[in-house]
């Protein structure tokens, strides 16, 4: 059976990817952030998953407003890196895990989740930046296959935080029932607080962020009880991306231990964080 070995929460700000692509990670602006990643990166390099289930949102690249799914899962054999308007990132294409994808879709649909499926999906910074946070130098190929899990966080109404947490729990059950001996990591991406547009642009709420960064480990229910309006008010219009961390947290078992975390302001207009949890498995 497949097992979940760790969960990573990480911001997916495009400029974090650009800093790596353009070799700026030791510039004064970026060094504190990337230094903060180091212990997590070293630990993950020693605990390699076969597949990464990456919960993220698309940003007007593979999904436009013609058809906006609330939850989607990629079921393809591979995914191209998107041109978001400034050329694709110079990173390898993403190799899928279509059997695991199909298993997840089947289990989730039977579990009452109304999943959209993608057979063609150009993956944008929402997915590739977290991969780069995990693995900064992939060479010719990423070190793991990927199942993309997409969440609508751009168009209101977004799914509730509680629904995201429930989806995560169902994903966890589905992964653990997959009849292959795979090691799986689950990524929850986006956040932390940020607002890109409007008079509150530049909003950073580090009290909320630090509370969230703590509570995601042991009190996810508290975070799942917040309304989308509360996320937007506290963490900013785009800070609502944090609901995707709850999908990751839901997929992990109750027995987790925090390997590392880090918090830094700013990455572009965003508060950036990383939190890495080892999954000790069900008791």
């Amino acid at each position, binding site marked *: 059976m497949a097992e979940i070995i760790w969960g990573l929460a990480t911001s997916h700000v495009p400029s974090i990817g650009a800093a790596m692509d353009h070799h700026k990670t030791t510039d004064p602006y970026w060094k504190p952030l990337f230094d903060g990643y180091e212990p997590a990166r070293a630990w993950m390099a020693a605990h390699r998953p076969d597949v990464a289930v990456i919960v993220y949102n698309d940003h*007007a690249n593979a999904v436009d*407003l013609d058809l906006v799914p609330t939850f989607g899962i990629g079921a393809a054999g591979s995914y191209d890196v998107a041109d*978001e308007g400034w050329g694709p990132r110079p990173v390898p294409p993403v190799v899928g895990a279509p059997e695991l994808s199909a298993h997840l879709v089947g289990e989730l649909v039977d579990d009452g989740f109304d999943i959209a499926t993608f057979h063609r999906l150009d993956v944008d910074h929402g997915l590739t930046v977290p991969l780069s946070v995990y693995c900064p130098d992939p060479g010719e190929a990423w070190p793991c296959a990927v199942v993309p899990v997409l969440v609508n966080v751009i168009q209101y109404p977004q799914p509730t935080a509680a629904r995201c947490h429930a989806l995560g729990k169902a994903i966890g059950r589905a992964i653990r029932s997959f009849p292959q001996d795979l090691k799986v990591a689950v990524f929850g991406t986006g956040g932390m607080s940020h*607002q890109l*547009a409007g*008079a*509150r*642009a530049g909003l950073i709420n580090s009290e909320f962020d630090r509370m969230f960064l703590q509570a995601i480990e042991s009190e996810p229910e508290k975070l799942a009880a917040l309304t989308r309006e509360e996320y937007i008010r506290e963490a900013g219009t785009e800070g609502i991306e944090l609901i995707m961390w709850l999908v990751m947290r839901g997929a992990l078992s109750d027995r987790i231990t925090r390997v590392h975390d880090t918090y830094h302001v700013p990455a572009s207009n965003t508060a950036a964080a990383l939190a890495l949890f080892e999954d000790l498995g069900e008791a």
Partner: protein
Amino acid sequence: MTKAQDNYLLDLAASRRGYAINRLCGSLKDPENRHRFSEDEAAYCDAYGLSPEQKRAILERDWTAMLDLGASIFYTFKLAVLDGKSMQHLGGVFTGMSAEEFTAAMRSGGRRFG
């Protein structure tokens, strides 16, 4: 200060109102479309069915008016990138600052509310 609203929520009504402008901006992820847009911006707006207000907002780079007319920042940002503008530039526009002032505000911990 600027006339920007506190928040812009892309709810279904905004998504409908801003359909043409978002579609136009989204199309700029295709290099050929970027080229066609740059060659004749007004004609490109007409081909995408923008309202006169939306067309004016695009041609004059009125970033706040775009949002008022239903655009989403994830779409209009593609136009900003084509212009060589950063998210810090846009942040400055929305808040009445220069890009440098906005960047400095971010580096000093971001802007606090409430």
